[in-house]
């Protein structure tokens, strides 16, 4: 049944080569933790992606309860983490996942750095990787405000003030981030939009580029 359905689609769209491209490529021994224990350092990239998937899923589910509004934001986070079944787990995954994704990405960056894997011909992939790093930090910064507790509020004030210290255009950046003259209702909706729509879209595009380049260029050789 499943097979005949697959064949029906494949006849029309020729989908076999698409997944074959992903599935069939060879993976060399030096990155395989089954052969060399030290190869676990090559897992950090994959783990970063794994946790990113957790982040995207848990984030999607959190928005079922979360309200980006200064009166209700705190109450909704409080509600979803203390009144909803498994709420503390889902929010916990998103909260700790945010830290872990940074840790994994940091370790992955260090692995690439110290194995010299960024060298020609993989320069572009390094640059894309650094952009992903920047986007992830942006996600961390914008996500921090969303629970709207004191920690969120004051850390964001400091963050915005840092942005405002940029010479010449600092004040404009500040107003643009805040959406007004104070960190308030408009700031929260802005940060929500950036955290939930803008940055994830950029992140997915960059990740696609990152993976495509890895597939195209293959993994860097053993040292």
């Amino acid at each position, binding site marked *: 049944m499943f097979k005949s359905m697959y064949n029906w689609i494949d006849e029309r769209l020729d989908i076999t080569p698409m997944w074959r491209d992903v599935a069939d490529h060879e993976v060399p*021994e030096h990155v395989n933790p089954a052969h060399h224990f030290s190869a676990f350092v090559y897992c950090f990239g994959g783990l970063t992606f794994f946790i990113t998937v957790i982040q995207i899923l848990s984030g999607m589910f959190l928005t079922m309860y979360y309200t980006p509004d200064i009166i209700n934001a705190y109450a909704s986070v409080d509600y979803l983490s203390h009144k909803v079944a498994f709420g503390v787990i889902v929010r916990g995954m998103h909260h*700790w996942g945010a830290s872990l994704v940074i840790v994994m990405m940091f370790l992955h960056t260090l692995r690439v750095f110290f194995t010299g894997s960024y060298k020609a011909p993989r320069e572009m992939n390094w640059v894309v990787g*650094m952009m992903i790093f920047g986007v992830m930090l942006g996600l961390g910064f914008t996500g921090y405000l969303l629970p709207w507790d004191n920690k969120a509020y004051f850390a964001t004030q400091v963050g915005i003030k840092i942005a405002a210290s940029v010479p010449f255009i600092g004040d404009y950046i500040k107003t643009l981030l805040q959406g007004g003259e104070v960190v308030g209702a408009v700031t929260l909706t802005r940060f929500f939009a950036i955290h939930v729509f803008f940055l994830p879209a950029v992140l997915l595009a960059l990740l696609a580029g990152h993976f495509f380049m890895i597939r195209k260029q293959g993994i860097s050789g053993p040292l």
Partner: protein
Amino acid sequence: MAHDRKPGEKVVFVGDSRVRLKTERLKQPDYSAYPGKSEAFIPNFLLKEWMVGVVVLVGILALVMSEPAPLGYPADPTNTAFIPMPDWYFLFLYQFLKYPYTSDHYVVFGTVLVPGLAFLGLMLVPFLDLSPERRFYRRPVTSALMIVTLLAMGYLTYTSWHHYKEELKEKNIIPEDVKREEELRAAKGAGKAAPSPSAGAAKKVAMVAPDDPGAAVFKKATCVACHGGELKGMPSSGIPALLGIGDTLSKDDILGIIKNGKGNMPAQYKDNIGKGLTDADIDKLANWLSMQKSK
């Protein structure tokens, strides 16, 4: 698409559309130069990655279940006792701003210039480190720069956290999320519903008899400086709201607190007499406060 066909090439079109049946695949990377056994990505290699993934997920779930995500009290812009801390991975940047050449008139150095240059340098490292050598010990300058940066980041993060802990101890502040969690645990132990400090819940208690002569006295007295004109207090700094205070304290209790203080609050009686209030005024004040009942 039809234009760039080579003469002898066999082209299969799907149906009558111009979509060419794709037969070429992305080129397989050739790992024959590397020693050892390579294996297919799916299922052989992916299985090993997934084993690592399983271990990591178990770790994450254990962390999630043992440590609930922190949540403090609702944001209160007038709270002055709160020590703001960014997420841990920004701590090194935060600490960096405390040094003489990264603060004061040079704050741009700390906020924009140095971090910007560092990030830019890292981003452009493939174009700065041009030697074909990959081993880190054979390219000492690049590696040394990275190691020094890592050590500096580690030091700054540690120092920042250390300062924070010391400050908490010195000012006798319990971090809000910890306080909140204890409250929840206490409520659970007592079998009550989890208290919610959200703004919506706080609003339900309204001020009673705002035209009472006691209210006018309150505005003149020292009380207003901390507990606020709206009797809201600053819960996050440990200054309780006086709304609904009549539920728990009688007029005599309140007079006692004015005369003797309570907790962090010093005795207020003398100060208020010094401000020109009389005993009768203070009596009116205490009477008015004892009228502040939530129902």
